[in-house]
C-alpha cells in the first residue's frame, strides 16, 4: 500500500504532538503515523472518587489497582515499569517485540503507546537556563519564545519562589501553584526557616512547575486532588500528549494513522519515502511525503537513522540522566496521616546548583507516598512480609521519596549500535552500552552526599539509596547530535538531519548535553521550533 502526504510526523508522544500542532496551525496538511497502543479497559473502570473512598468502598478496586490478570503485582526485580498501574501498563506494550534492545548496562523504558511515554509523564516542567540551552546546542532566544508557546498550550502551574529560576524562569504565562500536601508543606516551612543557610550551600527548594491544572484551563478541568493521578486522567487535568492529538483529529488538515510501525526512510527526487508495516495485518505500507518529522524518542530515532544509513552510521552516542532515589523518613510526620485530598505527583522540588550558575544543577523531586499502595513498599523491606506490613503502615505517611537526577555529558562509554537479529520483527536489535567514567561517578556520589545532608537538615532522613540502574531516569537524548558539519548521524542546528534535505529530528535526539532538569517540556518546545523550521525550508 502506498500513501502520499505533505508533512509526515512519526510518533504521538510530547514531541510528535507539539510538532503536529505547530504544523497544523501553520496550515500544513499533516499525517501522523504511530503504533498507538491504548488502555481500552482500566481507565473506564475507575469511579470518579478519591483514593481513600475508593479503597474503603469499591469491591472491584482490585481490577484497576492490580489488573484483571494481576499483572502489575511486581514479582521480579525489574525496576523499569514496575510502578506502572494497570491503566498505564499499555505504555510498555509491544516494546520487547517491536523495539528489541540488548544491554547489560542500560535498561531504558520506551513506549509505543498513544501519547508515547508522555502518557505516564511525571508532569514536571523545567525551563533550561541560557547556559544549559547553549551547552545542549539550543538557541536561547528562540527557546524563550518556544517555552512560552508550550506553557500557553499545556498549562503550567507553579509559583515564583526560590525554585523558580530552575523551573519556570522567565515564563509569564503561569497558572497558580498546586496545593502541597501537609507533609511537603511542613518540609517547605523548615526550608524557609533556614533558607539563608541553604542558599550559602547553593540548595534551593520550592514548588515544582507541573503540567497539571490548578484552575480550569481551555476545555480542561482543574485538579480535585483525588490522589488518583497514577490511574486516571479525569477531566484532562494532567496534560497528556494524546489530548493534543485528540484535538488535532477534529481538524481537516490532520490525519492520524495508528497500528503503524516505521522501519526506515530514504530520499528520492526531493521526496521522503518512509517504509512501515501495519502491525495488525503485517502488510507493508509506504508513505511518500514532502517533509518528514521524526519524533519517536532518541532511542527510536537512533534505530531509524542506523537502519536507513546502514553503511554510513554504525554507532551513535547517547545521553541519559543518572538517577537514584532515596526513601526518607520525615520524622516530624511519623504517625500523622497525609492529607486525604492531595495530588499524587511531585510535591516539591529541590535544586543543588553546584557552581551557583544554573548549569550542571542536580534536581531532586520530592514525593510523598500513598496511592501506589503499601505492598510495593513492603516488597523493598528486608524483613518478613508481616513485619514489613506493620512497619510500613506506620511509616508510610512519613515517607518522602527523593528522586535524584544528575546531568549527563556525552562520552565514548555511552553508545548505541544496531545488530542484525533474524528473530526480531524488524530484523535487528539495538545494543546499548552505558557507563560513567570514574570522574562522573565521583561527582554523582559527591552531589548525592550534599543532597543527603540537605535532606537531613530538613528533618528528612534518607534510609537507603536505591539505584534502579542506568536508563531508569527515562530521560534520553543526544543520539543524533547537533553538528554544523554535514555528516551522517548528526543533526543540523535547525533540526534537519544532516545528509538529508527534508528529514527533521523533532525529539531530543540532537541535544549535546542533558541537564538534570526533566527534559519533556524542552522536548516539546524543541518540537515546536523544529516544526517551525521545517516550514521555513519549504520551496
Amino acid at each position, binding site marked *: 500500500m502506498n500513501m502520499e502526504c505533505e508533512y509526515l510526523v512519526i510518533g504521538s508522544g510530547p514531541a510528535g504532538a507539539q510538532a503536529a500542532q505547530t504544523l497544523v496551525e501553520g496550515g500544513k496538511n499533516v499525517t501522523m503515523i504511530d503504533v498507538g497502543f491504548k488502555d481500552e479497559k482500566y481507565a473506564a473502570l475507575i469511579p470518579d472518587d478519591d483514593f*481513600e473512598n475508593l*479503597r*474503603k*468502598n*469499591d*469491591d472491584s*478496586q*482490585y481490577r484497576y*489497582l*492490580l489488573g484483571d*490478570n*494481576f*499483572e502489575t*503485582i511486581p*514479582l*521480579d*526485580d525489574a525496576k523499569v515499569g514496575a510502578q506502572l498501574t494497570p491503566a498505564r501498563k499499555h505504555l510498555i506494550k509491544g516494546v520487547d517485540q517491536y523495539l528489541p534492545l540488548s544491554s547489560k548496562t542500560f535498561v531504558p523504558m520506551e513506549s509505543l503507546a498513544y501519547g508515547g511515554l508522555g502518557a505516564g509523564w511525571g508532569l514536571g516542567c523545567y525551563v533550561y537556563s541560557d547556559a544549559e540551552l547553549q551547552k545542549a546546542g539550543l538557541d536561547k532566544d528562540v527557546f524563550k519564545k518556544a517555552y512560552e508557546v508550550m506553557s500557553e498550550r499545556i498549562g503550567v502551574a507553579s509559583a515564583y519562589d526560590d525554585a523558580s529560576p530552575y523551573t519556570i524562569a522567565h515564563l509569564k504565562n503561569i497558572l497558580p501553584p498546586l496545593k502541597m500536601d501537609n507533609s511537603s508543606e511542613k518540609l517547605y516551612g523548615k526550608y524557609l526557616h533556614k533558607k539563608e543557610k541553604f542558599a550559602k550551600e547553593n540548595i534551593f527548594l520550592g514548588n515544582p512547575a507541573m503540567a497539571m491544572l490548578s484552575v480550569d484551563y481551555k476545555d480542561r478541568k482543574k485538579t480535585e486532588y483525588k490522589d488518583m493521578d497514577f490511574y486516571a486522567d479525569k477531566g484532562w487535568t494532567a496534560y497528556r500528549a494524546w489530548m493534543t492529538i485528540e484535538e488535532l483529529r477534529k481538524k481537516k488538515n490532520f490525519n492520524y494513522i495508528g497500528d503503524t510501525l516505521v522501519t526506515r526512510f530514504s530520499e528520492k527526487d526531493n521526496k521522503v519515502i518512509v517504509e512501515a508495516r501495519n502491525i495488525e495485518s503485517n502488510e507493508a505500507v509506504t508513505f511518500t511525503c514532502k517533509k518528514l518529522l521524526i519524533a519517536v524518542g532518541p532511542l527510536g530515532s537512533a534505530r531509524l537513522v542506523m537502519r536507513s544509513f546502514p553503511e554510513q552510521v554504525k554507532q551513535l552516542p547517547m545521553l541519559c540522566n543518572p538517577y537514584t532515589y532515596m526513601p526518607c523518613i520525615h520524622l516530624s510526620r*511519623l*504517625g*500523622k*496521616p*497525609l492529607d486525604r485530598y492531595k495530588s499524587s505527583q511531585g510535591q516539591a522540588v529541590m535544586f543543588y546548583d553546584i557552581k551557583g550558575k544554573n548549569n550542571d544543577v542536580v534536581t531532586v523531586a520530592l514525593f510523598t507516598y*500513598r496511592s501506589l*499502595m*503499601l*505492598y510495593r513498599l*513492603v*516488597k523493598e*523491606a*528486608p*524483613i*518478613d*512480609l*508481616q*513485619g*514489613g*506490613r*506493620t*512497619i510500613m*503502615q*506506620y*511509616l*508510610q*505517611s512519613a515517607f518522602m521519596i527523593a528522586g535524584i537526577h544528575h546531568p549527563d555529558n556525552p562520552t565514548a562509554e555511552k553508545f548505541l549500535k544496531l545488530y542484525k537479529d533474524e528473530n526480531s520483527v524488524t530484523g535487528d536489535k539495538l545494543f546499548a552500552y552505558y557507563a560513567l567514567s570514574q570522574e562522573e561517578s565521583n561527582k554523582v556520589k559527591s552531589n548525592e552526599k550534599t543532597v543527603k545532608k540537605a535532606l537531613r537538615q530538613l528533618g528528612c532522613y534518607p534510609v537507603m539509596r536505591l539505584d534502579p540502574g542506568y536508563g531508569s531516569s527515562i530521560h534520553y537524548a543526544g543520539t543524533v547530535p547537533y553538528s554544523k558539519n554535514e555528516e551522517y548521524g548528526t543533526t543540523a542546528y535547525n533540526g534537519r538531519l544532516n545528509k538529508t534535505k527534508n528529514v527533521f529530528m523533532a525529539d531530543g535526539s540532537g541535544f549535546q548535553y542533558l541537564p538534570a532538569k526533566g527534559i519533556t517540556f524542552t522536548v516539546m518546545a524543541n518540537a515546536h521550533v523544529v516544526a517551525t523550521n521545517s516550514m521555513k525550508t519549504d520551496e
Partner: protein
Amino acid sequence: MVEVNISKEAKVFAKYLAGVKINEATALLYTKAIEARGLICEGRDKKLETFVLKYPFWIGFVDAALALTDKQSVFRKKIFVMLAVMEARPEYTDFFLAEKGSIFTIIKICAVGTRSVYRFIFGYFLIKLFSKA
C-alpha cells in the same frame, strides 16, 4: 482439590499477614491471582509450603529468612501476592492505610524489627534443613 489447597493457603497467609480470617471472595481472588501469575512451588519451596501449611506458626520464620536469602523464592512470592490481594479488598483497607501513631508506635516498630531478626535466625536454619532434605 488444587483449588481447595490454594484456598487453604490463602487463609493461612491472610491470618499470618494481618491476623484475620478472610472471606471466600478474597480467597477466590487469591486463587485467580496465583493461577494468572503461574506461581507453582517446586523443590525446596514445595517442601516449605507443605510444612508451613501444616504448621502455620513457622511461616514468619521462613518468610523472614527468605527475605534476606532468597527474595525470588516462589513460596515468598505467593505470600506477597496475598498481601497485594488483601490490600485491594475494601474489607482489609484498615490494615494498609496510614494510621495515627503515638510513642507506642515507635515501640511497636522496634518490637516488630527485633522479632524479624530472631525469626530470620531460626528461619535460616529451617531453610537449610529443607534445602538438604
